C-alpha cells in the first residue's frame, strides 16, 4: 500500500534485525534526530558528497565557509566534525549562522596551525 503523505505521531517496528522486540519511537525523534546537513569535502572548496549544501568557499588556508540550502531556525545548532590524516576540524569561532558556518582545519602536530585537508561535518538542530 502506498501513501503520498502519511501523518502520524508514533512509529513502531519489530526491530527484526536486532531483538525482534516491538519498539516505538515518537515522530518528534525523527524530525529532531535526523541530521539537517552533512558534507565530505577537500580544501579548497571541493565537495565529494553532501546533503543540504548550497555552496562552499575558500576562506584561506584551513578555512572553509559552508552555505546551506535550507536555513536553520536559529544559531543554536550543533556542528560535529572530523578530519583525515588525524588532523582536527573545528567550528570557526563566531561563525555559526542560520545560513551556515565556517569550519577550520588544524594540524595534528600542534592543534594550532591551520591546514587544508579532507574534512567532514554534520549539523543537527531545528530547520527554519
Amino acid at each position, binding site marked *: 500500500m*502506498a*501513501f*503520498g503523505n*502519511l*501523518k*502520524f*505521531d*508514533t*512509529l*513502531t*517496528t*519489530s526491530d*527484526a534485525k536486532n531483538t525482534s522486540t*516491538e519498539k*516505538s519511537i515518537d515522530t518528534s525523534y*525523527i*524530525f*529532531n*534526530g*535526523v*541530521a*539537517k546537513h*552533512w*558534507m*565530505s569535502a577537500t580544501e579548497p572548496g571541493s565537495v*565529494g*558528497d553532501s*546533503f*543540504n549544501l548550497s555552496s562552499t568557499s575558500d576562506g584561506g588556508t584551513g578555512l572553509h565557509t559552508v552555505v546551506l540550502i*535550507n536555513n536553520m*531556525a536559529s544559531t543554536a545548532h550543533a556542528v*560535529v*566534525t*572530523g*578530519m*583525515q*590524516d*588525524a*588532523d*582536527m*576540524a573545528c567550528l570557526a569561532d563566531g561563525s555559526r549562522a542560520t545560513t551556515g558556518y565556517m569550519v577550520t582545519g*588544524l594540524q*595534528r*602536530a*600542534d*592543534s594550532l596551525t591551520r591546514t587544508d585537508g579532507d574534512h*567532514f*561535518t*554534520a549539523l543537527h538542530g*531545528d*530547520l*527554519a
Partner: protein
Amino acid sequence: MSTVKTNTLTGTTTAGSISVTGEGNSTTTNLQQGLAKVWVHMHYSGGTPTTQDSLNNASNTDSGTGDVNFNYTNNMASASYAPSGSNNTNRSRMGMYGDLYTSYINVLPTANDANSNALVDDNISILLTGDLA
C-alpha cells in the same frame, strides 16, 4: 493516525527518499539523508578495541596502538561520507580519521600532548552520515 506499525519505511516516488516536515512546520528534510548510518562506542581493554554498543558495525580490526578499523555490516555508497566523533577521556584529540573506505573506516586517536603526533589507544565514539550503498 497516531501510530504506524511497520518493519520497513520506503518512499513511493523514490524508494530511498522520504521527506519529513521540519521543526518549523514548513520546510521538509530528507529522512534517509539525515539518518546516521554508523555509530560506535568503543573502549580499549588491555590494548584491544572492544565495541560497547554500535549500529551497522560488524567488527573491529586492531592495527596497532591508536590505529583501529571499524568494519561496516552494510557498506557505504562511496568513500565521500562524513564521519565525526570524540574521545571518551581527555587523552586524545578529536581529529582522528585515517582513510575512508566504502566497507570500513580507519580511526587514529592522537595523543593530547602539545607538539606530538603520537597515536594512543583511547576510548572513542564515532558517528557517520552519508549514503549507504
